[in-house]
């Protein structure tokens, strides 16, 4: 019981400190100063905080070689790359929610503050190496997101979505927590490292350990919305305020995958043979279900919700590959996916009329004539999600990386790769169905005039599209970054994957 190395610890959790302090400043700005513009000042403070977070993470990434982390907090490329990504996503979400709330007439300072608090939890999840910290991070992220979904209190659909999300989220947290308890009972450790070594040295209570691992996987699968634990996703994504949906689809999912990968890599690696088939089935089912069900949807947000389920499936393929290549592919894919999702949702925010009427495909009709740049950005982002070569920019390479990882894994996953390719082809049906009205149909007169989209929203949409395209031309820079960003557990080259039964 020695005195903690406080300054060393503070360096490791600097982004969380910055984000949570920023959240508190944002909250204070929301209750001080002139009434008019309070929410705007708060949003600006939150944006600044997120930018500081990005700069900080990039600074750590490019600065001096990383010192080894502690048993609570990791200090590797994976942590800092994803922290930068999540902070950037949060910054975009701050701008989008502010514009969206303002249009709906419910802008308030708590929204950016809650976004920052959620970001605190999310960045923590990229680094957590202790199940206690994992749990607190997930709770922090989830609690803030539940509230964000319910933020539009006059909207019955948002309330329904929030209740569904809260109840199912609490349910999945219970699974996770019970799993954590059983794993602790079986291994006597809360730390991923300790669990890993206890498991490797032969668990004393294999049944208990298996049960714990299974329950934890169920809890995590809920959070990443993998089939068959995806049922909440369409309703929640549909009912939540559009900007918050974007945040959930992009950043919350990325954070959940970050901790998913770290837990499987650091704690459960010796059990690979046991959980591998389970995740294999999950990945295949998620890809197929997400893509097939998306075909029949009319509302844009529901289409994107099912699309996000499908993407969870692609990302699970990267996890299932279980190698340094898989981790690289995961990071690469998360960057591409975040950019595309944020860009697409920025366009949807620009098109919303301030009511909670669900957007349908008809609302996109004639977008090319009304907002040509937004139409282009939307097309690029959606094509990127599809993984279309060239026009889809970096999205194509993201899928390519995942396929490579699956095929080059120590036990090649040809079947999964085939499922991935086939379901991607299916996804073309609904992605092109989103783009077609924007370019092929003439605008229908809107029931309510839609005000010109704010500059911030337009900037995000176009910036995302541009970055997608640029990275599509120069994917190697992102590949190099992603290769530096595999979790430290994979640093020692290919691991125990040899134990998989083909």
């Amino acid at each position: 019981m020695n005195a903690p190395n406080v300054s060393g610890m503070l360096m490791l959790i600097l982004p969380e400190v910055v984000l949570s302090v920023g959240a508190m400043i944002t909250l204070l700005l929301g209750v001080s100063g002139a009434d008019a513009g309070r929410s705007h000042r708060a949003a600006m403070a939150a944006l600044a905080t997120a930018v500081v977070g990005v700069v900080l993470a990039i600074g750590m990434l490019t600065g001096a070689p990383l010192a080894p982390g502690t048993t609570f907090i990791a200090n590797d490329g994976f942590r800092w790359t994803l922290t930068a990504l999540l902070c950037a996503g949060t910054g975009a979400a701050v701008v989008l929610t502010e514009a969206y709330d303002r249009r709906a007439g419910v802008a308030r300072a708590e929204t950016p503050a809650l976004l920052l608090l959620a970001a605190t939890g999310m960045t923590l999840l990229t680094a957590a190496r202790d199940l206690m910290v994992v749990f607190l991070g997930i709770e922090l992220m989830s609690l803030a997101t539940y509230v964000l979904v319910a933020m539009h209190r006059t909207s019955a659909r948002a309330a329904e979505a929030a209740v569904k999300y809260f109840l199912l989220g609490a349910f999945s947290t219970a699974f996770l927590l019970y799993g954590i308890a059983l794993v602790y009972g079986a291994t006597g450790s809360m730390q991923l490292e300790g669990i890993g070594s206890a498991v490797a040295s032969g668990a004393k209570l294999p049944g208990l350990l298996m049960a714990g691992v299974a329950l934890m996987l169920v809890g995590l699968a809920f959070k990443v919305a993998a089939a068959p634990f995806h049922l909440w996703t369409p309703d929640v994504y549909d009912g939540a305020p559009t900007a918050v949906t974007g945040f959930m689809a992009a950043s919350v999912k990325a954070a959940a995958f970050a901790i998913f990968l770290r837990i499987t890599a650091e704690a459960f690696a010796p059990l690979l043979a046991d959980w591998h088939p389970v995740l294999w089935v999950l990945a295949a089912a998620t890809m197929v279900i997400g893509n097939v069900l998306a075909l029949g949807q009319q509302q844009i947000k529901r289409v994107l919700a099912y699309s996000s389920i499908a993407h969870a499936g692609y990302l699970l393929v990267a996890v299932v590959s279980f190698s340094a290549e898989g981790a690289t592919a995961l990071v690469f894919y998360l960057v591409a996916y975040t950019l595309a999702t944020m860009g697409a949702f920025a366009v949807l925010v620009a098109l919303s009329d301030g009511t909670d009427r669900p957007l349908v495909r008809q609302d996109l009709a004639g977008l090319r004539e009304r907002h040509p740049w937004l139409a282009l950005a939307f097309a690029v982002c959606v094509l990127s999600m599809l993984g279309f070569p060239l026009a889809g920019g970096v999205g194509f390479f993201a899928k390519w990386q995942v396929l490579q990882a699956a095929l080059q894994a120590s036990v090649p996953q040809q079947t999964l790769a085939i499922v991935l390719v086939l379901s991607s082809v299916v996804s073309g049906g609904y992605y092109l169905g989103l783009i077609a009205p924007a370019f092929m149909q003439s605008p229908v007169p809107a029931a309510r005039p839609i005000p010109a989209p704010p500059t911030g929203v337009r900037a995000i949409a176009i910036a995302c599209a541009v970055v997608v395209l640029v990275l599509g031309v120069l994917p190697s820079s992102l590949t190099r970054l992603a290769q530096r960003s595999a979790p430290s557990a994979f640093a020692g080259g290919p691991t125990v994957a040899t134990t998989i039964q083909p």
Partner: protein
Amino acid sequence: MSDLSRYFFYLFSLLTIGSALAFVTRKGPVPAALWLVNTMFALSGLYVLLDAPFVGAVQVLVYAGAIMVVFVFVVMLLNLGRAGDRPDLRGIGGQLTAGVVGAALLALLLAARRGDAVLPALVPSSTSTSNVVEPVAQLLFTDYLLAFELTSIVLLTALVGAVVLAKRRTAA
């Protein structure tokens, strides 16, 4: 474990399990909540038997004394408490599912014990001390300082969320 503790262990275990069963089978929210309170009490007895009187006392203080009181308060405020008012939401299907899940978890725990004649001593044997708070405080403010501080942020989030969602709407 001396003989006396063994008897107390069975007493509190039976109380815990019995109360928990009553908790899930009662129809009215208020009786169910009270059985849950009873479960918490019996659990705290088990904690005391494990040489963790601090956890035992806090268990009663937090769960029975604070959380359940607020729960009962809300049930009463919304006047939901009477069993006869509305049909039981848990249909026969729900009850069966719950039973199956419960049985599965029980089977799982039993299976987990299979093959292990004696549970390994994972719980560190505690030394008896006159100051039961100090060891907890030591751990909390050194090794688990990060988790402790994080908890405060989680609570802040919950607080902000509750206030935002429940506050009477004023002119924005």
